[in-house]
C-alpha cells in the first residue's frame, strides 16, 4: 500500500519532465569551459549550495513553527471538550459533480462552501476536506447537510441528509461521504461519526 503514496508524490515529477533539459548545453558551451570560467562556475555553485542549505534549514524551522502554531490555534479556538469537525469526502463520484455543501447544526447555518474545480479534483482523488470546525455543547444536536451539484445526466441536483449527533466530552469528527449507488445509478450521501 505504501507504494501508492510514494507514487502519488512523485508522479507529478514525471509529468514535468522537460526534454529540452537533456540538451541543456547550448552551442556556445559545446566546448569545455576555460579553467577560470570553470572555477567561477564552481564557486557560484558552492555559493548557491551554501545559501540553499540555509534556506532548507529555515524552511524546516518555519514548518515546525507552523505546526506548533496550528495546534495552538486549534486548541485555543476549539477546545477538545466542545470541538466538532465536519469532513467532506468522495468515493468515486461518477453520479455527482459537487458544487457546494451547506451545513446546519440545530437549524443554524455554520458552513456554506462552494467548491472549485481543483478542490473537487482533489476530493475525487481521495482528499478529504474539513469544511467546518466549531464548538458545540455536549448533548444531542441535529445536523442537516445539503449537497448541490450536477447529478446523473448533468441535471441540477440537490439532496439533503440529516442526522442527530451526540456530542460527548472529547472532540467529535463527522464525515459526510458522497458515494455512488451503482445499482440505482444515483449518488448516495452517507454520514459517519466518530470521536
Amino acid at each position, binding site marked *: 500500500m*505504501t507504494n501508492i503514496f510514494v507514487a502519488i508524490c512523485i508522479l507529478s515529477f514525471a509529468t514535468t519532465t522537460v526534454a529540452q533539459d537533456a540538451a541543456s548545453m547550448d*552551442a556556445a558551451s*559545446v566546448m569545455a569551459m576555460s579553467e577560470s570560467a570553470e572555477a567561477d562556475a564552481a564557486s557560484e555553485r558552492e555559493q548557491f549550495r551554501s*545559501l*540553499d542549505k540555509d534556506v532548507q534549514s529555515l524552511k524546516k524551522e518555519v514548518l515546525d513553527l507552523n*505546526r506548533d502554531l496550528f495546534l495552538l490555534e486549534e486548541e485555543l479556538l476549539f477546545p477538545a471538550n466542545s470541538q466538532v469537525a465536519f469532513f467532506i469526502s468522495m468515493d468515486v463520484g461518477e453520479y455527482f459533480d459537487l458544487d457546494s455543501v451547506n451545513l446546519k447544526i440545530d437549524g443554524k447555518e455554520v458552513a456554506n462552501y462552494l467548491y472549485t474545480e481543483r*478542490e473537487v479534483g482533489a476530493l475525487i482523488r481521495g482528499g478529504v476536506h474539513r469544511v467546518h470546525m466549531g464548538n458545540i455543547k455536549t448533548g444531542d444536536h441535529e445536523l442537516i447537510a445539503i449537497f448541490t451539484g450536477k447529478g446523473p445526466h448533468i441535471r441540477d441536483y440537490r439532496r439533503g441528509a440529516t442526522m442527530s449527533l451526540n456530542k460527548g466530552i472529547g472532540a467529535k469528527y463527522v464525515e459526510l461521504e458522497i458515494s455512488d449507488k451503482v445499482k440505482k445509478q444515483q449518488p448516495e450521501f452517507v454520514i459517519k461519526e466518530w470521536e
Partner: protein
Amino acid sequence: MALLPHQSRADGKKAEPTVVQDAHYGEVLFYFYQGEYFPAIVRLLAAQKQSQLESHEKESELLLGGLYLSYGHHLYAAEIFERLLADNVEPEIRDRTWFFLAKIWHQRGYLAESQQALNNIQAELPKVLEAERNMLQAQILIDRREYDQAIAMLQAWKDKTEWASYAKFNLGVAMVRNGQVDAAAKILDGLGNLDPYNEELNSLRDKANLALGYAYLQDGQPHAAKPPLQRVRLAGPFSNKALLGVGWADAENHNFRRALVPWMELRSRDLLDSAVQESMLAIPFAMAKLDSISQAADHYLNAVEAFYEEANRIDRTIEHIETGALLDEFLGQDPLETTGWYWKLEQLPEGPESRYLLHLLATHSFQEGLKNYRDLGYLRQNLANWQKNIGVYRNMLDTRELAYEERLPKIEASLARADLDGMVGRKLEFDARLNSIEQSGDTLALATEREFELWGEITALERTPALAADIPEAQEVRDKIKLLKGVLQWELDKEFKSRLWRVRRDVQQTGQALVDTQRSRRNIDVTMRGEPLMFDSFNARVDGLNPRIEMLQSQVDGAMGRQRAFLQSIAVEELRAQQQRLNTYSVQARFALAAIYDLSATVGDASQ
C-alpha cells in the same frame, strides 16, 4: 472513506485503490492534490504530533517525504527516504523516488548527491523515465569531465524516441570536449540533417548545426562551416549567431561582398544580442576590405555611438539592480500562493532589466536561486501573518482569563449554596422510609392529600362519644362510617403498589440526577483547578512562540538579503560581461576608425 484511484502513473498502469482511514490523512491529501505543499506539510506534521494518523503511520511518513520533495525541501526528503526506502517499499517505487531526488539535486548543483541517488537505483525504470535517467547520468559524467565514460554510455543508446536525438547531441558535446572533433562532426552533422517533427527537435537541430558550424570555423574550415550554419532556421532563437557565422565563413574565404548579406540582415535586429553587436563591427570591416572606406567609417561611427548608448543603458540597469528592486519586480506580479520545486517564472516583468537578463532565467542557478528567494518571501509573509494572529490570541487569552476571574467568585458562591451532601442524605432517608412503608404495608403513607383528610375525618367521627350510644340511629351512623372507611381502605390498598412504584421511580430519578450533579460538580472542580493551569500553559506557549516568530523573521530577512545579493551579483556580473564586450567592440571600432582616418590622411597627403 474515499478510495484513491491513481490513474496518472507515468508508466500508464492503474494503481490499486487504497482506503483512506483517517480523515486527517485525507485532509493532507486534499491540499497535496491541489499542489499546496506548505499547508499539506503543516497539517501532516500537526496530525502526526497529535497521533491522528495511526492507520497510516508509515504511509504518512513516506507522504511527508514526497511532500518535502515537491516543496523543494530535498535534503529532508532524502533523510526520510534513506530511512524508509530501504525496506518494505516496492523496488519500482524506491527506484523512481531516487531518480527524482537525483534530478532535483542535479538542478540544484548537488552533483555528488545526485550521482549517489542514481547509484541507489537498482533496476530499470519505466521506459520514459529510464531514458531521462540515462541522460541525467550522461550529463553528470560530462559535468565531471569524465568524457570517455559519457561517450561510451551515449554511444550505447538504444531507444528510438526523441531522447535518442538528445543523446546524440550530448554525445557530440562530449566528443568535442574530449578532442574527438571529427567523430563529433559526424554525429552533429547527422543530427543537423534530421527531419524534425516538433519544435523541440527543430531547436535541437538548430543547436547541432550551430555547434558544428562554429566547430568548423574554429578549426579553420570555413567551407565546411557554411552548410550546417545555413541549415539553422532564419526565424529561430539561434538565427543571429548562425547569420554571423555564415558571414564569417564567407569572409574567411575572402568573399566579403557575400559576407555582407547575412551581416546586413543582422543590423535590423536587437542590439542586445552579441551576434548583432559583432555584426556592427563586421560590416565596416568587410566594407573596408571592399575599399568602401567612407561607408566603413560611417558604420564604425554608428557602431561606436550604438555601443556607447547601450553601455550607458547597461550602467543604468546595473544601478537599478543594485538598489535591490529587481527581484521584487521579478516576483511582483507573481502571487505567493504556491511554493515548491515546480514553480518557474513564466513571464518577465516589463522593464529594461528583463531584456538583459532573459537568458539568465534559463540557467539553473538563477532559476533555483529565484525559487529560493520566492520561497523565502512566502516564509516571510507566513511569519508576518502568524505574528498578527499571535497578537489576537494574546488578547483572546487575556479576555478569557479576565472573564474567568470575574465569574469565579459567583460560581463559587452558588456552589457553596448548593448542599449536595444534604440532598444525598435526604435521598437516602427517602429510600429508608419507602422500604419501611413497603414492609409495613402502610397504605396511608402513600395516600393523596384528600384521602388523608377523609381518613382523618372518618377516624374523628368514629371517636365521637354520641355514636357509642346503644340506639338504632347511632348504630346506623356507625355502619355508614364503617362502610366509608372500608371503601377508603380498599382504594388505598388498590393503589398502594402502583403508588409505591411511582414514588420509587421518582426517588430513583432524583438519585440519578444527584449522581449527574455530583459528576458535574467534580468536573467543575477539575475545571476550576485546571483552568489556571490551562491559562498558564497557553500563556507559556503564546509567549514562547512570539520570540520564535521574531527570531525566524530576522533569519528569513537575513537569508533573503543574502539570496538577493547572490542573484544580484549573478545579474550584475552578466551585465558587466556584456558591458565589457561592448567596450572591447567599441575600442576595436575606434581603432579601426583611427586607422581609416590615418589611411585617408596618408592618401590625401600623397595626392597633394
